[in-house]
């Protein structure tokens, strides 16, 4: 088997292993930590009977290992269990919320990724000049404010004072795409701002790293134009690091979604998760946590796979 294929298989296997371990960790984290789950759901004043009831309902009387395998088996078949608080099937409540969350994240990515790469290139082109300095100052400012506050700042100035966009992002299936986009304008703006800063910074660093290589100097000394140098020499070597940057930031975006959804009361998975953390609805938290972690792991895995595929040493072995 060629080396790069072997590395690919290894990386994918590692990703799957990681998913399995993460599922264990989440299960373990919610079941074996000090503090009785039943107690923390019902509070200190719960009666012993109520505690016993809820323990039975949660299956807490069975051994942890068999509970884990039951849970995992259910997961594989798409059965995420039932919510303690509402008694509803988690998978069906999650379905539409996951769709909404992905909708939000998708539009944020569509705007943020090209913009970040463009601004990163701009910062490299005008390195140490005012566009670069402005970009890094804005970056510093935007990573110094938590996501939810960026949300409220935009809501206050753009939504309330200017009245350009709705302050609450309610969407449902009856809306047209245009109406939906109008509804999510502010959360998309917030998410874009949040990942833009990181992505731009990392893109800038990745391209600068390539531009400082000796082969770029060789290309300059060949009398090539700047465009040819970037297109033929810098770009083929920048793809892997840039894809890496994009993937890492998409993973970051998925987390940012949680907070932003709460700010704009958007009916997505993040809000669902936070709601049920406060209600201590463990099965929902487990399911949502695992889905978020899985997205994060898969995106990181894709980043690594692209790096392997783009490495000429691995693609063309000696």
């Amino acid at each position, binding site marked *: 088997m060629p080396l790069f294929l072997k590395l690919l298989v290894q990386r994918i296997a590692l990703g799957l292993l*990681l998913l399995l*371990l*993460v599922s264990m*960790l*989440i299960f373990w*984290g*919610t*079941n074996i*930590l*000090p*503090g009785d*789950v039943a107690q*923390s759901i019902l509070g200190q004043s719960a009666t012993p009977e109520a505690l016993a009831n809820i323990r039975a309902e949660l299956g807490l009387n069975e051994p942890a290992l068999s509970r884990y395998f039951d849970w995992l088996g259910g997961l594989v078949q798409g059965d995420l269990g039932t919510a303690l608080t509402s008694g509803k099937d988690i998978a069906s409540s999650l379905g539409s919320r996951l769709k909404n969350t992905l909708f939000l994240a998708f539009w944020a990515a569509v705007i943020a990724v090209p913009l970040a790469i463009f601004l990163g290139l701009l910062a490299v082109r005008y390195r140490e000049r005012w566009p670069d300095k402005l970009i890094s100052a804005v970056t*510093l*400012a935007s*990573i*110094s*404010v*938590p*996501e*939810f*506050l960026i949300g*409220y*700042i935009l*809501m*206050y100035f753009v*939504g*309330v*004072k200017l009245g350009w966009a709705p*302050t609450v992002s309610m969407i449902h299936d009856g809306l047209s795409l245009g109406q939906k986009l109008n509804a999510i304008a502010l959360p998309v703006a917030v998410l874009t701002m949040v990942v833009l800063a990181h992505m731009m910074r990392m893109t800038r660093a990745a391209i600068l790293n390539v531009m400082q290589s000796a082969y770029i100097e060789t290309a300059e000394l060949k009398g090539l134009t700047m465009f040819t140098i970037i297109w033929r020499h810098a770009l083929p070597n920048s793809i892997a690091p840039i894809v890496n940057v994009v993937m890492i930031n998409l*993973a970051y975006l*998925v*987390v940012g979604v*949680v*907070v932003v959804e*709460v*700010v704009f009361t958007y009916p997505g998975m993040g809000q669902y*998760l*936070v709601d*049920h*953390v*406060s209600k*201590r*609805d*463990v099965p929902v*938290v*487990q399911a949502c*946590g695992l889905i*978020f*972690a899985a997205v*994060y*792991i898969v995106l*990181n895995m894709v980043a690594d796979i692209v790096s392997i595929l783009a490495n000429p040493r691995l693609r063309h072995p000696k």
Partner: protein
Amino acid sequence: MIRIPPAALFGLFFTGLYFLMAIFAPWIAPYSMTEVVGGVWEPWSSKHWIGTDNIGRDLLSRMIYGGRTTIFIATMATIISFTTGSILGFTAAVIGGWIDQLLSRFVDLIMSIPTLIFALVVLSVMPVTLPILILVMGLLDSTRVYRLARAVAVDINVMDFVEAAKLRGEGRIWVIFREILPNALSPLVAEMGLRFIFAVLFVSTLSFLGLGVQPPNADWGGIVKENKDGIVYGIPAALVPAVAIATLAISVNLVADWVLNRTTSLKGGRG
């Protein structure tokens, strides 16, 4: 004599100011934290410099006490993440072998789950008290410190001067504390600044989500949560913590940048 660039001076000044305000909060705050002293969301006035909050408490006083809570939690979490992360990171780098493998793979596993999600999962089953909050934040963040400390120490550990010390017969303690630590200090100190900022943002986020500091106590994130409903009526009280968090974070960032630059140029010496 060390020349301090203006940006770092600005950073040092505001960082110092915030810490002093946190320490001396009871003497500085004009009112108590919980006392209702005026109407709901009163505008800025000479009596209430930045107005009152959603139930008529003095916002400035709440901000000062809230800053105390935020800074205290962030500082404690940073101390925990630093001691745990750097001790384990150095140990892994110097000893190597299976201890290193075990620790590093475990950290990889923890880091494969986004920090916020992990914290939410843990906090869904643990009682939300200050010590637990600090511990969860500190331990989760120590994975990042571990990675940095280990990477820095591994780089230094293969340098010839460390080999020279080992050849001389020096013990592990000397190697870690006299050869590696002095050379690892500057990136670690700079990282400490970044971890502190992260802790401030993180605890604010948790409190905003209702999973951090519990009422009637409040930190900056909690103040946002309390006053967020005013936003739609055009009342900006909820945005006040934004200014505080941003200036603190930017100040610490500027100091961290300066520490990193100053020490790297010293290390570079003559080319």
